[in-house]
């Protein structure tokens, strides 16, 4: 036994030094005077817990705003991490190639959307060490967490297709899923005199699965306005068996393609791009020539997910379809494009998920069962050109149906029909996005899909 160094104040216990380590006898409390004990207990606070949100895009920012407003800041410290300081309104990328929006219309500083007092870390995430409950950042900072929300989204990977990024990339081959691609395509279109325009979806799933359709609808309108529609051959090439994933909407949207004189090739899985001959070739050697190729390359989760060993073959994180808890770790939740859910990867979907996730996080914190269930609800305005739009509303089990939305029989929006009102809905979405959605405020749409107003 070492020597007694000093008597601890109040406790009557002895702090002893054994070698270099300090030894405190096991139950000093037995010596404590009751008044002192009550005072100490009333001053005692549970240790602060850490909630870390990875990714401050659509979903992460929404969750930060919702939880910041609800959690007791003396109990939970919320930290959000992102590599970039600019927030991009991705739905706006669709309009850039046609000169409707430019860069300045789709960017705002992320900090404008963070609540006062939020702890924001600007750094690239290296990996999650789930077994240790910590996140390593590329700048060597380590963040420990009690609860983690992953919202690192999805991005395009043109390198997944042979030849995609060879000679013609950003010369005759463009994407519009990044700001760079959308702006490069805008420059190209301004000078283009016409020819074969091919839109190809490389592989499903993709973010906003209606965006490629909207792109060809807008191209039809834009080249008509420019007076060269007769010189532009528009060709929609997809790995799906039809225009869209869900049968009824696929039929209706397929008719729109027909009506707008847009050629459809379904069941085409791209194997490679031949740059010299300007053609795309499928795995079963079907060839489609192009003058300009607009590609939606393979969408995958961030590399961080793979480095963490948490993803599937597309780096999406296996997530419970209903509760949004990760399949592998009970203190990790996943939201938005980063999940492997069979729902659409869209901002509107992330918004519905955010309501469910907030409820489940509160339950988790109190040790209650996770009762809130996500039903796969998606609601998408499809811009169809000439100042009109189409609206679809669906979930895991119910495919898009015709009818009125959100008020049954009244609208003002019409489901699966082309109307001017639906177009205004799409245009209004940007305003709603900046002012309501990102700030975590309620929208007048239920997070669960409703059958009211729909026709079977």
């Amino acid at each position: 036994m070492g020597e007694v160094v000093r008597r601890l104040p109040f406790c009557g216990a002895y702090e002893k030094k054994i070698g270099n380590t300090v030894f405190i006898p096991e139950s000093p409390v037995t010596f404590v005077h009751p008044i002192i004990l009550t005072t100490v207990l009333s001053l005692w606070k549970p240790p602060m817990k850490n909630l870390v949100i990875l990714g401050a895009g659509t979903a992460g920012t929404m969750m930060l705003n919702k939880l910041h407003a609800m959690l007791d800041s003396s109990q939970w410290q919320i930290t959000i991490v992102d590599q970039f300081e600019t927030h991009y309104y991705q739905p706006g990328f669709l309009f850039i190639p046609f000169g409707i929006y430019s860069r300045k219309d789709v960017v705002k500083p992320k900090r404008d959307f963070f609540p006062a007092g939020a702890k924001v870390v600007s750094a690239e995430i290296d990996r999650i060490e789930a077994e240790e409950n910590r996140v390593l950042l590329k700048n060597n900072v380590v963040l420990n967490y009690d609860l983690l929300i992953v919202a690192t989204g999805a991005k395009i990977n043109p390198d997944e297709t042979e030849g995609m990024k060879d000679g013609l990339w950003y010369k005759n081959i463009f994407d519009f899923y990044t700001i760079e691609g959308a702006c490069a395509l805008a420059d190209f279109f301004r000078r283009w005199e016409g020819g074969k325009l091919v839109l190809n979806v490389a592989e499903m799933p993709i973010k906003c699965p209606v965006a490629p359709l909207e792109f060809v609808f807008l191209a039809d309108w834009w080249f008509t306005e420019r007076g060269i529609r007769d010189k532009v051959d528009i060709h929609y090439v997809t790995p799906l068996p039809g225009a869209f994933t869900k049968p009824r909407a696929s039929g209706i949207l397929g008719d729109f393609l027909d009506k707008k004189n847009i050629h459809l090739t379904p069941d085409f899985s791209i194997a490679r791009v031949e740059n010299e001959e300007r053609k795309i070739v499928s795995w079963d050697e079907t060839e489609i020539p192009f003058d300009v190729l607009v590609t939606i390359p393979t969408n995958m989760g961030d590399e961080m997910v793979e480095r963490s060993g948490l993803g599937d073959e597309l780096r999406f994180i296996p997530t419970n379809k209903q509760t949004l808890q990760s399949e592998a770790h009970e203190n990790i939740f996943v939201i938005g494009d980063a999940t492997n859910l069979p729902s659409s990867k869209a901002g509107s979907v992330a918004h519905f998920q955010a309501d469910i996730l907030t409820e489940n996080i509160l339950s988790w914190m109190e040790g209650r069962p996770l009762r809130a269930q996500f039903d796969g609800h998606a609601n998408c305005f499809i811009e169809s050109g000439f100042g009109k739009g189409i609206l679809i509303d669906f979930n895991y089990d119910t495919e898009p149906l015709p009818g009125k939305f959100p008020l049954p029989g009244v609208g003002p929006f019409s489901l699966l029909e082309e109307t001017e009102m639906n177009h205004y809905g799409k245009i209004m979405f940007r305003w709603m996005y900046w002012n309501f959605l990102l700030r975590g405020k309620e929208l007048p749409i239920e997070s669960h899909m409703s059958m009211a107003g729909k026709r079977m």
Partner: protein
Amino acid sequence: METREIAGKTLAFDADGNLANLADWNEEIAQALATEEGIESLTDRHWLVLNYMRSEFQEKGDAPSIRKLTKESGVDTKELYQLFPKGPAKKAARIAGLPKPKGCI
């Protein structure tokens, strides 16, 4: 749900035309389904894929995607499309007696 005769047995099929009951499946029925898909005779390479799909389905409850297939079955994408022309994931699932892969939207 529809019932019809295949390989001498009367079996139930789901709305996608896939076998309704996993247990109804056997190798003879697989060949009959393959013939319907335009594949004359199932080779060892076909069987490699089919067996992988069945074991994956039994483990995970969903048929694997093409990406997963090529990563784990030992058959590359090019060959997969030669074995099961047009939509290998869908076709192979049908021949393996599994429901259509849920896929994504």
